[in-house]
Structures are given as structure tokens and as C-alpha cells.
């Protein structure tokens, strides 16, 4: 708007000058613009300014606009695919048959290297196993008992209150047994890794038969696209029919991986079923109370909302 008015005023100014051209030579020589050159010049200035503005913007974007990646794609690792886990839905619980199968996979496969140190046998009761089964499993292991009369610590069979035994005495022993790599504790693993269930499932089933050509990995490392850096010390462990399920489910690699991941999700979030139920209660009670509060508000406000202010002007005395 401002520019347009400026243009218009300068045009009228130019016309006034043109009128003066005829009268004096000095005026004609000093007036730089003729009638048709003036808008061109002004347009030039505008165009140049716009070009500089766009150019500086482009230069700025060129300098600072592009995204920087500190790591290469290989170093980031392949992002895990999203799988439609049933137990992740808001109104679904863990499949306890799958948990039982998953615990079997953990016990027969994973537990030779990975500990599950936050899970006691008692917490399996009612989730994957009955009391008697859990007791029998606990009794298979030996634990330190209280010091006896001579102050020596004897071994005793496990009880329900004992935690699942660690495969190694300590982290150093675990490293020494695994070529320097420490197998992490799996109790909270689903919460501890970006991608959670999807990541662990992809990692377990994602080992290709042979790494893509050109990949050079140090000795003792295996290629897994989902592991950041793609070199993982753990080799592929799950193969078809490694485990024989008691319920007759065909033990394919992906079935075992799915079951064990669901079990690990339970071990990381054993309260999930209760949490969802509680959330549902909160929603139900909350909406009921909200609805009630709306009605109470209407009730309380009804005298104020329905009142009528009437102004009856006093009758002015007499006729005019």
C-alpha cells in the first residue's frame, strides 16, 4: 500500500517535471527520468531488492538449513519395524499362554547368558505357573542360607521368595566368558531400549543369512541390521524347533521371539494389566463425576439463570 502510494506520487511528480522540461533546458537536463523510463527504473529497484532478499534467504538455508547427521545410517542401525502387538492395545492384557511359552524360551535359551535378576519365583505364580510348578522350579537351584551354628553359610534349595539365578557370578565373569561383551540383564530391557518390543523382536529375528557385501566386521561380532553399528557380539540364537512347547505351538523362530518378547515386556511391566484396568476405572468414574458436576452446576445456577430483572419506570405525573 505504501509502495503503491509512493509510486503514484512519484509519477505525478515526474509529470510535473515534464511540464517544466519545455520551459528550461537546465530543468530538462537535471530531470533524469522521462515519462516511460521512470516505472522501469522503479521496477528494477524492486526486482533487485527482491532478488537479493531471496538470494540471502537461500544462502542462509544453504548454510544453516540442512539437517546435520552426526552418525551414518550404519551407526544408527535400522529402525525397528512396528508390529501390531495385541498386548499394547488399551483394552488388552498380556496373553498368559504366550507368557508361559516366553518364560520357557527364556529359561531354556536366554538364561544361559542373560540374567533376569529382578524377577523372583513368587511373581511367576498366577501369571505363568501355578504355585507347585513355581516351587518345583525354585527348588532346582541352590541359594545361600543363613549362617549355621559354626557361622558357615550352607546351601539350601530355592524357595518362592528367591530371585531367578544369575548365569554368572558377576559382570566381570560374564565379560570374560563372552569375549569381552556383557550380556545385559533382561528384567527391564523392553523399557530400556528405543523401540521396546519391536526392537527386541527385530533384533532376535533380524539376523540375515549372510551380511550384505562389503561389510567388514571385527572378529567375534555378528551382523545385525537392527543393532546400532550393526556389529553385535550375540550370535543368532533362535532357530526353528529349538524349544518344544508344552501346548504344541509350532516353535518357529518368530514364534519363540514373539513369546519371549511378550514375556520380557511382562517382566519389565508386570503391573500393566492392573494399570490398564485402573486407567479404565479412572475414565469411567471421572466421566461420571464430570456429568454429575454439570448437572449440579445447572441446579445451583438455575435461580440466577432464570431470574428476570424488570424495570418498571415510574409513571410520570400528568398528561403533557
Amino acid at each position: 500500500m505504501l509502495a503503491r502510494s509512493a509510486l503514484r506520487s512519484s509519477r505525478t511528480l515526474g509529470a510535473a517535471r515534464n511540464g517544466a522540461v519545455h520551459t528550461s533546458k537546465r530543468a530538462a537536463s537535471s530531470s533524469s527520468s522521462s515519462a516511460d523510463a521512470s516505472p522501469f527504473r522503479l521496477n528494477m529497484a524492486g526486482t533487485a531488492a527482491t532478488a537479493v532478499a531471496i538470494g540471502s534467504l537461500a544462502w542462509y538455508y544453504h548454510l544453516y538449513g540442512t539437517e546435520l547427521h552426526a552418525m551414518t545410517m550404519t551407526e544408527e542401525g535400522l529402525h525397528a519395524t512396528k508390529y501390531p502387538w495385541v498386548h499394547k492395545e488399551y483394552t488388552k492384557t498380556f496373553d498368559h499362554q504366550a507368557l508361559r511359552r516366553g518364560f520357557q524360551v527364556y529359561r531354556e535359551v536366554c538364561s544361559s547368558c542373560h540374567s533376569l535378576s529382578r524377577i523372583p519365583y513368587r511373581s511367576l505364580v498366577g501369571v505363568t505357573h501355578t504355585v507347585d510348578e513355581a516351587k518345583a522350579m525354585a527348588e532346582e537351584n541352590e541359594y545361600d542360607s543363613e549362617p549355621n551354628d559354626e557361622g558357615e553359610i550352607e546351601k539350601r534349595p530355592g524357595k518362592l521368595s528367591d530371585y531367578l539365578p544369575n548365569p554368572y557370578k558377576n559382570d566381570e565373569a560374564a565379560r570374560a566368558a563372552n569375549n569381552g561383551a556383557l550380556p545385559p540383564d533382561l528384567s527391564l530391557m523392553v523399557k530400556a531400549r528405543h523401540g521396546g518390543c519391536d526392537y527386541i523382536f527385530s533384533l532376535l529375528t533380524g539376523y540375515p543369512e549372510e551380511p550384505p557385501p562389503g561389510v567388514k566386521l571385527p572378529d567375534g561380532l555378528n551382523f545385525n541390521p537392527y543393532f546400532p553399528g550393526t556389529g553385535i557380539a550375540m550370535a543368532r540364537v533362535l532357530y526353528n524347533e529349538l524349544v518344544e512347547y508344552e501346548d504344541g505351538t509350532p516353535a518357529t523362530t518368530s514364534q519363540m521371539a514373539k513369546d519371549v518378547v511378550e514375556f520380557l515386556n511382562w517382566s519389565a511391566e508386570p503391573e500393566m494389566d492392573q494399570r490398564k484396568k485402573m486407567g479404565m476405572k479412572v475414565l469411567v468414574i471421572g466421566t461420571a463425576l464430570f456429568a454429575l458436576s454439570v448437572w449440579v452446576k445447572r441446579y445451583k445456577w438455575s435461580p440466577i439463570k432464570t431470574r428476570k430483572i424488570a424495570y418498571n419506570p415510574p409513571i410520570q405525573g400528568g398528561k403533557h
Partner: protein
Amino acid sequence: MGFFDSISDMLEAALPWSTAEAEAPKEEETKDEESSDKSEEEGSEEKEEEPEEEEEEEEELEDPKEKFEEECKESKACAPAKHHFDECVERVTSADHGKPVDKKHPDEDCVEEFFHLAHCASTCAAPKLWNALK
């Protein structure tokens, strides 16, 4: 079984959720003794049939994830990724077949191409796989 037990049983059957019990169900000895003869007879028949089925399963058992991902790799959606990966494999392994090595990128690997192909295949296979698994 009392009157209220039967009502609670019916309610339990009708409700969409069920109760989980920590205790193993108590074995009813009398019934077991009676039915033991029958179950043995039935069991022997079943045992004859079972091994044949298992053998068949063992031969056929195939990881559904691998199967679906192979199918997906060949599908039209993953064709560009597969094309790039195959081209990369050919380029990188060309030295093994006596062709001149690519001097610009002597250390090239096919990880990125592999990532794209694997991502495409696993995304495509994910819903099918979950339908196939228990």
C-alpha cells in the same frame, strides 16, 4: 454346588473376562479312577495318530517371517529397493568376477541398500506375520 455358585458360574461364563487362579485345580480322585480306563484307551488311539502328524510338521516347519519377507522382497512395492540392492551387490562384488574395481569408492558396502530393502520387506510382512503367529 450351591445356588449362588451356579449363578456366579453362569456370570463368569457370560463375562468377557475370566479369573486367573494361582492354585492348580484340585484333582478329583474318584473321577480320575473311573475315567482312567477310558482315557487310557483313548490315549492309546491318539498316540498312534500323533507321531505321523509330528513328522509331517517337522518336515514342513518354516519360519513364517522369512517366508513373508521373501515374498515381500519380490513384491512390486519393494522393487525399487531390491533393484538398488542388487545393483550394489553387483558393483561391490564385481572385483571377485575379474571386473575392474570401482576406483571412486573402493570401500563401498551395501548396508544402506540392505537397510532400505529390509525395512520395506519387514514393514510389508508385519501384519501377515502377526496373523500367522499365535
